[in-house]
């Protein structure tokens, strides 16, 4: 799969370039190539007009390119000064470190980025996220960075910390440092960037200069392709009762304001939103993985308060998790084992597993879901992504659930299996099962849903009925734009 195809990018000295695009557009890949984490297959990189080739991060660092990851890469237990100089300490004979020098230099750098110099020996774990961010920048400067790449720098910052970051970026820019700023927060892009380049599906989608940057223009560039895949939704039920309802639900780690939405019987509700919007977390709260701290959840009229997945399952809720290899399957065990695992109560007699029933379940699922395998004993880890996903689906469908939560149901699944999964979803909807489908695949959301619900920073940003469906509308809501 090609992540980037013929992408051009340019950064001037003392300029802030924002890079913007949907999930999977290629932003991370591009940045990792700049920073030497990945090597490019074709094309070239030039610095000051000179062709460069990076074989690793060290090469990029030597050229002055520093990448600050979204999840900061600091050694929490070490001090600020130690982190700034980690890997390139000022050393003498036999590795003896010049602590005094380093403390002084660290102090100067900290001053430059606006960090209180008194913190120079404080362990990083005691700092606020905003301060940790500044430590990373100071570290980049200690490496004489001429280009600093920031990946979603404000995702864990308060408004105050974000403002301070803008000031630091401004001062760095004025000092001649080039900054690449990756963000999906379009308001920030407008505040901070001199220029924006938009990526879409691994291609350049366009560029905007500071004066031309506005929300609508960015959205138009980020989005805008035709729906290629055919989505089999033959059964659209006109009249539906409300099957699943959540009112004002708050969960541990979630936003202070509760969230409410419904799923009708036989309805497919597509839940869209950017990475980090809180979709998976909400689903985990309903399924009993995360603690619900407020609000009510009802399924078929009965309240659901699941403190553990088993309770959610008993109420009729099942979830196909986002990461099937980590949460959805026991890779070393067989197809039969995995299919039966959440169903053992029905497959056993007096707590002893009846293998005949287990095998029967296996055969039924393999044939209904078209799981391609020579035998039920094959370890699921050896199956293709699509077949693995079908095993995950199969184990849940065996319970005859009322509400099926799907988190990225076709991620890493080949085209053929995708079609089969869509038709299974359609069949389930036709039989009255409520389907809550979380997806970052725009085409899938638009093609399969009866109704779209968009989340933005943990809150409901808006809902779209079938006649209002459009990629632009979804992206606007997902990025926090006006309704």
């Amino acid at each position, binding site marked *: 799969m090609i992540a980037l195809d013929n992408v051009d990018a340019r950064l001037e000295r003392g300029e802030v370039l924002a890079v913007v695009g949907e999930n999977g557009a290629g932003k991370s890949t591009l940045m990792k190539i700049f920073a030497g984490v990945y090597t490019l297959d074709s094309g070239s990189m030039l610095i000051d007009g000179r062709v460069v080739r990076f074989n690793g991060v060290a090469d990029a660092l030597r050229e002055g390119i520093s990448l600050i990851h979204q999840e900061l890469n600091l050694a929490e237990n070490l001090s600020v000064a130690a982190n700034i100089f980690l890997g390139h300490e000022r050393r003498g004979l036999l590795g003896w470190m010049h602590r005094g020098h380093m403390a002084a230099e660290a102090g100067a750098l900290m001053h430059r980025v606006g960090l209180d110099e008194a913190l120079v020996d404080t362990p990083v774990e005691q700092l606020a996220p905003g301060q940790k961010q500044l430590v990373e920048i100071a570290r980049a400067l200690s490496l004489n960075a001429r280009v600093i790449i920031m990946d979603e720098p404000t995702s864990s910052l308060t408004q105050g910390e974000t403002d301070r970051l803008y000031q630091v970026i401004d001062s760095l820019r004025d000092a001649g440092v080039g900054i690449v700023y990756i963000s999906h927060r379009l308001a920030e892009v407008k505040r901070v960037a001199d220029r924006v380049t938009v990526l879409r599906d691994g291609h350049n989608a366009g560029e905007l200069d500071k004066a031309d940057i506005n929300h609508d223009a960015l959205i138009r560039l980020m989005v805008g392709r035709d729906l290629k895949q055919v989505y089999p939704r033959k059964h659209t039920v006109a009249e539906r009762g409300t099957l699943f309802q959540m009112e004002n639900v708050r969960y541990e780690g979630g936003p202070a304001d509760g969230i409410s939405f419904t799923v009708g019987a036989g309805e497919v509700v597509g839940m869209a939103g950017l990475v980090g919007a809180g979709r998976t977390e909400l689903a985990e709260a309903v399924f009993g993985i995360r603690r619900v701290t407020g609000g009510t959840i009802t399924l078929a009229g009965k309240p659901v308060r699941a403190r553990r997945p088993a309770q959610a399952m008993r109420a009729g809720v099942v979830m196909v998790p986002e990461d099937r290899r980590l949460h959805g399957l026991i890779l070393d*065990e067989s197809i039969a084992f995995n299919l039966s695992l959440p169903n053992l109560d029905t497959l056993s007699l007096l707590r002893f*597993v009846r293998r005949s029933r287990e095998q029967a379940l296996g055969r039924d699922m393999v044939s209904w879901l078209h799981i391609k395998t020579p035998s039920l004993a094959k370890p699921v880890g050896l199956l293709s992504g699509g077949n693995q996903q079908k095993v995950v689906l199969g184990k849940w469908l065996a319970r005859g659930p009322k509400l099926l939560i799907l988190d990225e149901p076709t991620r890493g699944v080949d085209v053929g299996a995708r079609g089969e999964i869509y038709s299974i979803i359609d069949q389930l909807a036709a039989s009255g099962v409520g389907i809550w489908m979380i997806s970052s695949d725009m085409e899938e959301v638009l093609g399969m849903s009866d109704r779209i619900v968009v989340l933005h920073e943990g809150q409901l940003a808006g809902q779209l009925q079938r006649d209002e469906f459009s990629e632009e509308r979804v992206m606007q809501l997902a990025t926090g734009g006006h309704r």
Partner: protein
Amino acid sequence: MLSGIAKLGRVGGVLALLAIIYGTMCILDFSYATRWSNVKEVLNQQGFFAVLTLGVGILILSGGIDLSIGSVVGLSGVLFVVLMKNGLPPFQAAAAVLGVGAGIGLLHGMLVTRLRLQAFLVTLCGLFVYRGVARVLWTSPDRPGVRGTLEAHPEFADELGQLSEWLTGYAISGKFGYPMMVVVALVLAVLIGLILHGSVYGRYWYAIGRNEQAARYAGINTNRQRVWTYVLCSTLAALGGILTFLSEGSITPESTGNTWELYAITGAVLGGCTLRGGEGTVPGMLLGAAVLPLLKNLINRVGNMPDVRAVIPSIDPVIPIIIGLTLLLGTMADEVLRRRR
């Protein structure tokens, strides 16, 4: 040929190892190797360690570990005597000791699942603490023994005699009849084997050992299941304490059980319970537990040979070296065969 052995699985491998060890002994001294008085001693030891290994094996298989087994053995033995000395009849004392073992397991399980403490650390602390408690419980200078107990409570002789003969094969007098500890081990193996290989709980334990997160997302109450495995392990260790007391006739509070957790874990690992978790079988555990006592028997026999005695006066220090090497070679062989499978 190698892939043939690989297909037999771990069980085949351990069986081969046992055959090699026993075969070597037969070659060295056939009459000794087949003498019933020696064989029943070895069998009894194998049965004893199998009891410990079954407990820790299930635990390891589900992703846990217990370093305190040896100390629990010592503590249980002392507790058994203390209870009887204070008037509790043997059967009830034994039941109470098993209850304490279960309680220790419950404590371990709770600390690991609720407080999210590392099992290695919790049970390592247990190793020290329980040993200390054992020493504190027994204040008199003479060792807690059967004779002392019966002197204080002669009325316990019948019950104690029955327990001893049925569980270990040793009569109060010290006379050794049949290796009953093997029978105890086999009975436990059947019960545990049924649960592990046939019941839903066994499935849960394998799932938790392979991938605890996925097991949780599949609706398994991973905390509760883990606690059960800790309870099982410590209860069997407590049983081991009772068995030790009855078969040896006495307990040394400071040292009975020292390093036995390592023997138990070695037996489990040789039998197929990799420390990664998610693997292991009851037949494997039985066979794995059988290796070290047999190996020790062989080494002792070799050490007694006059030619060897002349060069190495005492074979004792060599034993741990050979055991360590056996475990290492066994693990290496397993890795190699695993890749061919």
